[in-house]
């Protein structure tokens, strides 16, 4: 099948391209213009915006905690539209099927689920297998597990730690490693109620900092493209910008991804002791080229916070709305589900909203700041179109700002910020940068040879409308969205890495599991056949 997308404005920053032109697709790949050949299909996309498919690096779309949140909040996701004949369950509110459809409708073709406890990997992958259209990937969570903490405490050395991380990634079929409030879930099991970067996990005499450093090194040693993905300490607390700055310093120039930075951008100014310190934080990010961040923007609406930072979630139970939370002390990890309603007339929520936008606008390099709402923690991914509109237009921001409490606005620099993202910046942030960060060389750009993941938008001055419903979306060269509606299902793959490591660690782990848990680690395996889809996995190359 040869397809020609004719006459659109092609925005492909990986190739320095922003201009009118054609894109050619043969089967599942982008190809050079096929001179002398008649395409099987020609789409006239004159006046439209043509980009590679977008990639979301941080969105909680699947797994045990997400599913608990669904079951906790039946009142939040009532469906009200009958399903179209060809796409079953696509309108079932918050179903895996709906997730794939709505992401694809926005022009997203790859989404990473960033919090998979290794023992719950099969459940996560089963859910991902039921998300249609898009490709997926998972980050395996380490940093609160006895085996790792013991290795570090006992001075086992970086090679042993890397072997363990490699074995865990292989078994759980992840694309990278996440660390969530290192040591805090373990400390919480010892009844610790707050946990800072240099606080020490009881019984291990190990600081959060030491755990992060060890994991950061292991990820580098294994040659995993994605740097350690870190959810650091003290999320959501006034004055926690100090923690974020200390975490950036603790990276010591080595690659580190800081997740949902907005939730760490708070100072202690003002009579409420809560202000935006985003400007200071953005400056630190600008000055440290080894650090990448995603924003975790807050948007005003009802949502639910789903986090493996169980200590933080326990402390947030009092803010639950509606008033019900789940606190989970899991194997070597934890989790908390706390429903939350961000309100525009709430001082704290307004400061949070503004500080996220400040980070977008004050971090200079769109290759190092990633577009996220930490779905659904800051807001559901379905608010992305509104957020695109906000970062693209100071006018749009001004009209939102006018509705916020003045006291909150005074705690931020947002009204003074005039920057507006261009389409080129947006494509850089949501296409080029994620492909580089995750090591996905086959996507994020429109070079010949790339996977034919292409999103084509109407150039609608209402940017939110434009990004909510793409005109056309191709996944692997297959037209899946036409004018915002899914045409048919296809099922993508979960992208994973297979780092090499010394398999002696597998035998050691077998002995350890038998000794400690009385079971085999094989019980937590993720067999390909169990997922019920053809080719459910795709491989991402490792290498230093």
């Amino acid at each position: 099948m040869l397809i020609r997308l004719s006459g659109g404005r092609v925005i492909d920053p990986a190739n320095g391209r922003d201009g009118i032109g054609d894109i050619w697709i043969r089967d599942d790949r982008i190809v050079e213009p096929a001179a002398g050949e008649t395409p099987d299909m020609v789409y006239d996309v004159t006046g439209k915006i043509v980009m590679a498919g977008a990639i979301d690096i941080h969105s909680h779309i699947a797994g045990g905690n997400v599913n608990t949140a669904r079951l906790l909040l039946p009142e939040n996701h009532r469906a009200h539209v009958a399903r179209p004949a060809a796409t079953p369950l696509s309108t079932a509110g918050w179903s895996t099927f709906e997730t794939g459809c709505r992401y694809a409708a926005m022009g997203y073709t790859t989404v990473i689920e960033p919090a998979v406890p290794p023992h719950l990997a099969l459940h996560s992958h089963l859910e991902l297998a039921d998300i249609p259209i898009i490709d997926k990937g998972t980050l395996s969570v380490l940093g609160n597990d006895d085996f790792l903490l013991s290795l570090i405490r006992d001075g086992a050395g970086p090679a042993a730690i890397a072997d363990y991380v490699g074995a865990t990634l292989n078994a759980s079929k992840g694309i990278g490693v996440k660390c969530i409030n290192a040591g805090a879930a373990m400390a919480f099991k010892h009844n610790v109620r707050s946990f800072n970067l240099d606080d020490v996990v009881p019984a291990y005499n190990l600081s959060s900092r030491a755990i992060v450093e060890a994991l950061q090194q292991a990820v580098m040693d294994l040659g995993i493209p994605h740097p350690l993905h870190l959810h650091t300490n003290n999320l959501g607390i006034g004055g926690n910008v100090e923690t974020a700055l200390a975490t950036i310093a603790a990276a010591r120039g080595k690659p580190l991804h800081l997740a949902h930075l907005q939730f760490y951008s708070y100072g202690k100014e003002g009579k409420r002791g809560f202000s935006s310190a985003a400007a200071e934080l953005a400056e630190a990010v600008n000055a440290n080229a080894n650090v990448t961040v995603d924003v975790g923007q807050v948007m005003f609406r009802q949502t639910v916070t789903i986090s493996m930072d169980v200590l933080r979630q326990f402390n947030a139970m009092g803010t639950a709305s509606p008033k019900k939370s789940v606190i989970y002390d899991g194997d070597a990890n934890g989790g908390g589900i706390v429903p939350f309603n961000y309100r525009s007339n709430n001082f704290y929520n307004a400061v949070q909203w503004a500080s996220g936008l400040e980070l977008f606008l004050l971090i200079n390099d769109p290759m190092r700041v990633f577009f996220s709402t930490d779905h659904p923690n800051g807001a559901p991914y379905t608010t992305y179109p509104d957020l695109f509109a906000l970062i693209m237009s100071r006018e749009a921001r001004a009209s939102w700002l006018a509705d916020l409490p003045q006291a909150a606005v005074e705690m931020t620099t947002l009204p003074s910020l005039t920057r507006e993202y261009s389409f080129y910046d947006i494509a850089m942030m949501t296409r080029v940068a994620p492909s580089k960060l995750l090591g996905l060389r086959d996507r994020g750009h429109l070079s010949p040879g790339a996977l034919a993941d292409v999103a084509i938008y109407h150039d609608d001055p209402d940017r939110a409308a434009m990004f909510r419903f793409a005109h056309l979306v191709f996944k692997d060269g297959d037209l899946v969205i036409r004018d915002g509606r899914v045409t048919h299902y296809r099922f993508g793959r979960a992208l994973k890495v297979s780092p090499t490591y010394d398999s002696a660690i597998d035998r050691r782990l077998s002995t350890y599991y038998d000794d400690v848990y009385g079971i085999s680690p094989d019980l937590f395996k993720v067999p390909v056949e169990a997922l019920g889809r053809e080719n459910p996995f795709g491989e991402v190359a490792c290498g230093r």
Partner: protein
Amino acid sequence: MKILVDGAAAPLEAAAAEAARLLEQAKLPLIAGLAADIAGARAAIALAERLRGAYDHMYSEFLLRDLDVMRQSGQFVTTANEVRVRADCVVLIGAKLKTAWPDMLARLDLSNPARFDEAHAPRKIFWLGANPGDAEEAGAVKIAAPSSELPILLAALRASVAGRKTRPDAHIDGKLADLAVQLQAARFGVIVWSSESVGRLTIEMIQGLLLDLNKKTRFTGLPVGAAGNVTGVGQASGWMTGFPMRTGFGRGYPEHDTWRFEANRLVDSGEADVAMWISAYGNEAPRWKREVPYVAITTPETQFAYPPKVRIDVGTPGVDHDAVEYVQNLMTLAATDARSASDAPQVASVIRLIDEHLTKGEGAC
């Protein structure tokens, strides 16, 4: 392995075609039983959606006791592994815990101190409302109580832990004074119950007690799931539709209503006019009272009160074939290898075959 249409042996294709015909001409087809592995449950829920029918599980009632408390007021929960390695204080509640979870005592290793308990002292174990002999076997302090008395007992315990005055009741106070002290002294305590043997009010009291205890120390819960992979099916239902079982698609989108879509009520009221009964784990037959025509996808020894229109025997997940199911020992979905692999058909493949014979719509799985 029997394949029968109206009691007579038939080829699988013909049986599937007849099942499809029967289901498709129904006004409200019901998928019930639903005791299947994850693949079977996914296929069955997708079929219900395509048919615009409703689905329920034979043990939904038990799952919903835990879920209803959770979605009303929240939940503290942990895993068997964490109890095994960490719990210094264990409170077992209810009479049928060991029936619901035969491996419990060995899996939780209650006779040994918890490996990661810093004091490494013998565990403090209590059993409220135990069966005769159970508490002794578990090395537990026995607090006798009939099931009906458990909510009151737990309410008094909760009041006592919270430092509130309780109505003086020597009968209850004597039993609970020591327990209240021990709970508050725990470092990482756990309460274990099975929704098969305790009611919603008991579970609500357990969760309230956990909330109160966590103000000062760490305490959490370990729910024991019911049979028929009901917990696993509930998970698949959650990600596929957003809701647990007792969900219907009559309007073209999922609606969840624990009364409206209860299988026996749907049949007995005449609302459901054709049913499919799935029972791959045991030889369970439907318990509805009205004689609705039905398709049975069950294990070979199942005895029915009245014969199904179509009967297709299937193997048992994890025995006849590899399967994904909820594993209580792990508190999550796990891949189980066939213990004695056979070529018996699987629920998922039978449903897919039926699905292929439908003329309207398109299936999800």
